[in-house]
């Protein structure tokens, strides 16, 4: 659906990373973890296209005025990387945004008895918080959060508050273990793979590595992808990603926006 949303809060949570809360229609209560929104940053033509962002959280709040009913809200966690996100970070409480969503196919929560391993690289954590909120109801959940430095490790406290066990790895060792988050994941799997399933979001290289780890151990693995998007609804065919059987001769492209952004890792074509 398309709606006008009012910003309730917009704050920098770590250098370069922002968290925005905004009003949402009641339908957002049913948003699936892993779905996303397309945000029109402003009404001018620069930037022209909407920007896609994962749904970090949904919930309800009670407005300040007396006798107010609880209202649904939506949260995004975003990194300032270019023009659109820079403009977003300059918006204030009560400013309005035009939003499309929830869009796409979210995570499949999987069987209850499994252990759930969540792997997030940097702002890739964004769609994993709502996921963790759902998963902790029924399963044991561990989070593997990675980043270059400790500034890239986001919202760990929030995950811990859910009862998620958190493992942190930074490339420079400034927080948690020094190294890649995939190393932390493998270490844990070496200890006890059991019948865990994996949920991952982050840079493509990280997802590639996670998919390989899952494949080697025959674990179920879902990944949330990014892709350059114009429409977000399967019409422009701009956002596609090669499916497992893709080759130049037998092309097999999937729409990240409607077939994904969450895919079972075995359905995708991965690099060497």
């Amino acid at each position: 659906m398309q709606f006008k949303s009012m910003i309730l809060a917009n704050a920098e949570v770590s250098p370069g990373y922002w968290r925005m809360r905004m009003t949402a229609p009641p339908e957002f209560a049913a948003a699936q973890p892993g779905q996303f929104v397309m945000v029109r940053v402003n009404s001018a033509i620069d930037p022209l296209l909407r920007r896609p962002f994962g749904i970090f959280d949904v919930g309800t709040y009670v407005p300040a005025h007396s006798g107010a009913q609880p209202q649904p809200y939506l949260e995004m966690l975003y990194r300032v990387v270019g023009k659109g996100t820079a403009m977003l970070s300059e918006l204030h409480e009560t400013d309005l945004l035009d939003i499309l969503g929830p869009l796409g196919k979210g995570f499949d929560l999987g069987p209850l008895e499994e252990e759930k391993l969540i792997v997030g690289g940097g702002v890739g954590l964004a769609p994993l918080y709502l996921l963790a909120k759902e998963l902790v109801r029924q399963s044991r959940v561990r989070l593997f959060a990675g980043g270059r430095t400790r500034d890239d490790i986001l919202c760990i406290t929030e995950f811990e508050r859910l009862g998620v066990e958190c493992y942190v790895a930074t490339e420079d060792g400034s927080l948690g273990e020094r190294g890649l988050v995939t190393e932390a994941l493998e270490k844990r799997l070496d200890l006890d793979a059991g019948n865990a399933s994996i949920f991952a979001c982050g840079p493509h290289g990280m997802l590639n590595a996670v998919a390989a780890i899952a494949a080697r151990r025959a674990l179920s693995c879902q990944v949330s992808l990014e892709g350059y998007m114009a429409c977000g609804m399967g019409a422009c065919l701009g956002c596609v990603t090669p499916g497992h059987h893709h080759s130049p001769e037998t092309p097999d492209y999937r729409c990240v926006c409607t077939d994904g952004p969450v895919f079972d890792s075995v359905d995708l074509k991965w690099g060497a």
Partner: protein
Amino acid sequence: MKPDMTVNIAGIALRNPVMTASGTFGYGAEFAQYVDLEKIGAFVTKGLSLQPRAGNPTPRIVETPGGMLNAIGLQNVGIDAFIEKKVPFLRTVNTPAIANFFGNTVDEYVEMARRLDGIPEIAALEVNISCPNVKQGGIVFGTDAQCAFGVVAACREATIKPLIVKLSPNVTDIVSMARACADAGADALSLINTLTGMAIDLNSRKPVLANITGGFSGPAIKPVALRMVWQVARVVKIPIIGIGGIMTATDALEFILAGATAIQVGTASFINPSAAQEIAEGMEAWLVNNGVASVNSLIGALEV
């Protein structure tokens, strides 16, 4: 009083002049949640070919100042899957569906026209001639008047449905292209298709698009589109469908003044999925506010 918004393009009566542009509206169903399809004049499907086409590697799109480039590579399900999977939806909508199509050879164009001619759910054919002619060394059909005449005349033989020819703007003389297509039997002309553009990523030192160049669309191209519609409308008798950067009802009415009988909304649907419907409503509101009884009185009404 409700103004008359109906227009006639190539024998099809449209409830209003607003269509959606090929490649920006899927096969119609994708936008049904955002646009009441029965509030727009017609919709044009994604370009179809005989065989399914996988399209280009990614990245396929990039934003540019006031516009975007796409190099989708004409990915489409192919005519067979179209008939099986997409046509049933068309039956449920009381709005003309126009099939956009293309080929690599004149024979493929003709075969496509023949196949589409047999589909009752299709109200008209829009032939995209912005494709390289594989038999003639890859020269784009739509950039050579003789080539364009040939392919259009051949398609004309293959269908009794209204035949709309969609012109490429990447030419020195749009008027001679338009004349050639009209002479070959086109019932209407759509213009413009995308300009050819390119974007470069300085840091990687590579083109942004995997295909290197792409089709340039969006508000940035409106001045070129408007100019071409005006140039062609002054000399060609068949109706014109104006396309290129239309974002608002004002934009749409400007194209009508320049000589377009109808317009198509492309890139705007990405930015605002209900754009086509809002533009139709906005045009009607403008007619009311300005006491214009019929949109037909504005066609080509530019005072120069």
